[in-house]
């Protein structure tokens, strides 16, 4: 057990991420506060998604990926040899850029993950039906799909599909939800619904969202981390602070240039 400050859901310490010999992310030290929305912004290629995916060990799906440093979660370094990545991913969930519901019914989409992780109904515990309904409610999707739970998940619109993916992530009871540009493939109205949802979810879960839309980061988050790319194309953390500060009075000139759009 490592004694990490329990105000923080996730802490990255001296995190470096490599693809083969190429260092994609350099010396990141970042502490994510519990039950708040933290946004990660920065120009293309600065490693935002890489850092996000390192928080639930999704990087390992790429064969040449390797990390040095620690990511602390709930008392453990998730990169420790004894830690099972499967368990990490259950407790740190993920929503992806392009909605990717399973090719199953809406009900099954939500239920599958729960069942997989040993969901047991019964006396005193919610049944699977109740749990699916609860998760769909939390994802602000229940009213729209309650009559068609058996229909394919792919029959929904883009925004609904993304909310289904959120419901699916909620179904395994994570503590942290990572969102990789969750609204970038959606129209403005669907985007706003997702943003609203993020704020509601933050009451119960810690949310970390990567976005290339600055205004979205400004609207939605409590804290913002600005990443940039150095001359070796390695991403590094430039500035991290409360969102109002980052967007009205950033301390670092690079941050100022980026948020005012005078970058490059």
């Amino acid at each position, binding site marked *: 057990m490592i004694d990490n400050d329990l105000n923080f859901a996730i802490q990255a310490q001296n995190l470096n991420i490599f693809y083969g010999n190429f260092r994609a992310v350099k010396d990141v030290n970042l502490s994510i506060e519990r039950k708040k929305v933290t946004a990660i912004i920065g120009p293309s290629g600065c490693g935002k998604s890489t850092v996000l995916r390192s928080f639930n060990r*999704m990087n390992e799906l790429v064969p040449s990926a390797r990390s040095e440093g620690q990511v602390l979660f709930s008392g453990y370094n998730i990169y420790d040899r004894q830690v099972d990545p*499967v368990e990490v*991913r259950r407790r740190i969930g993920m929503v992806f850029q*392009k909605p*990717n519901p399973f090719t199953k019914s809406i009900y099954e989409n939500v239920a599958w993950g729960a069942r997989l992780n040993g969901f047991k109904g019964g006396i005193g515990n919610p049944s699977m039906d109740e749990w699916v309904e609860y998760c769909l409610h939390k994802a602000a999707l229940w009213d729209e799909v309650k009559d068609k739970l058996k229909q394919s998940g792919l029959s929904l619109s883009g925004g609904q599909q993304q909310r289904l993916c959120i419901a699916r992530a909620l179904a395994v009871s994570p503590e942290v939800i990572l969102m990789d540009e969750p609204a970038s493939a959606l129209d403005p109205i669907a985007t706003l619904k997702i943003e609203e949802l993020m704020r509601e979810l933050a009451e119960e879960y810690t949310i970390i969202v990567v976005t290339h839309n600055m205004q979205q980061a400004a609207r939605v988050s409590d804290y913002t981390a600005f990443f940039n790319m150095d001359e070796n194309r390695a991403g590094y953390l430039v500035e991290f602070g409360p969102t109002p500060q980052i967007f009205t009075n950033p301390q670092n000139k690079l941050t100022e240039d980026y948020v005012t759009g005078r970058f490059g």
Partner: protein
Amino acid sequence: MSIPTNGKRLTPHFESNLPPRNRKATLWRTLFQLSTTIGMIMLMLLLYNIINASFGLVAIDNKIDPASLAVDGVPIEELDQETLITIIKENVSKGKFRQLEREQPLAERTWDEVYQVVIDDVVQPKDIVGTWSLVESLTRKEEIVAEVEQEHPQATVKFTSWIDPQFVTSPQSSDVLKAGVRTALLGTLLIIAITIVIALPIGIGAAIYLEEYASDNWVNRMIQTNINNLAGVPSIIYGMLGLAIFVRAMKPITSGAIFGFTDPTTANGRTILSAGLTLSLLVLPVLIINVQEAIRAVPNSLREGAYGLGATKWQTIWYHVLPNAIPGILTGAILSISRAIGETAPLVVIGAATYITFDPNSPFSKFTTLPIQIYQWTSRAQGEYHNIAAAAILVLLTLLLSLNATAILLRNRYSRRY
């Protein structure tokens, strides 16, 4: 960030080149249409040929007048068994006689049985004096009848379809009129069943391993290259491989000796099991490649979604990758089975029997298959064999199409869900 143009404004000149571009486009389209048309024409010709030969007029004559067989004025119905046996011996080919003896010695048979043999094989052999194709039969009917009247006054002319239920259910026979494809059909079906049971699990398993589990090192790349190359190896080489390994080296297993089957005729390992194993090997590379393609076609986003929920690799594959790859896998299965059904050369090398009349009833039986049967019939000189060969081809095509249709239906059923 304005693009430096020194403030000048450039006006480009475009020459209208629409007509030649359209002409070129039309030319290519015509070429492609032409190739499709040629393909369709070839297909039509093939079908025409087969159907033409499968139906038509046939002139049948009795080979031997039953009365002429009477010995010393006694009609055959009253002759004793021994005499009957002599008559048989004199009137039937040596090979046929030996075959009859092998099935059951004539002396040990009842009188009725021997009499039936006389009727079937001596009197009844209907001599076919002429066959005509469908088109001819339809267009020149009167001429043909007149021709036959002239040359074989005793012969009857009738319209047959060479393919009929009797054809499918009758065993092999040297008599064209009685010959059927049952033996060959059963052989084909049994062999294909074994091929499917062996090749599908191994092929799908290998493809899953190569696509999902194997890391990208030189060993696995070499394996992949080998599989790709094996898909192009001529099938007769697989036949030789099967001969060496399954027929000879694994003789105790494939002949069933170690399981207690001691049929002397199959002691050499030339059994359905060997044939099935050989075809499995033949079909495996193509199957693996197709299944790999199908698995590769499953979008990675589905896998990521599953992993993101805390699924293990196997759970992801079983619940998401495989179900979504089923259309492709079924396509691969169709291709493999179709290829296997049509293979002739390797099975000949393995040792398909040239003439068996009893049905194969176990994996350790001797066998023949439809393509081999067709080959044997088409290589005979007499014209009437070509007709039943055509009929057998129709049976083969029907089998093929129905297997394909089943697979396509299955594929559609699974695709409809998405």
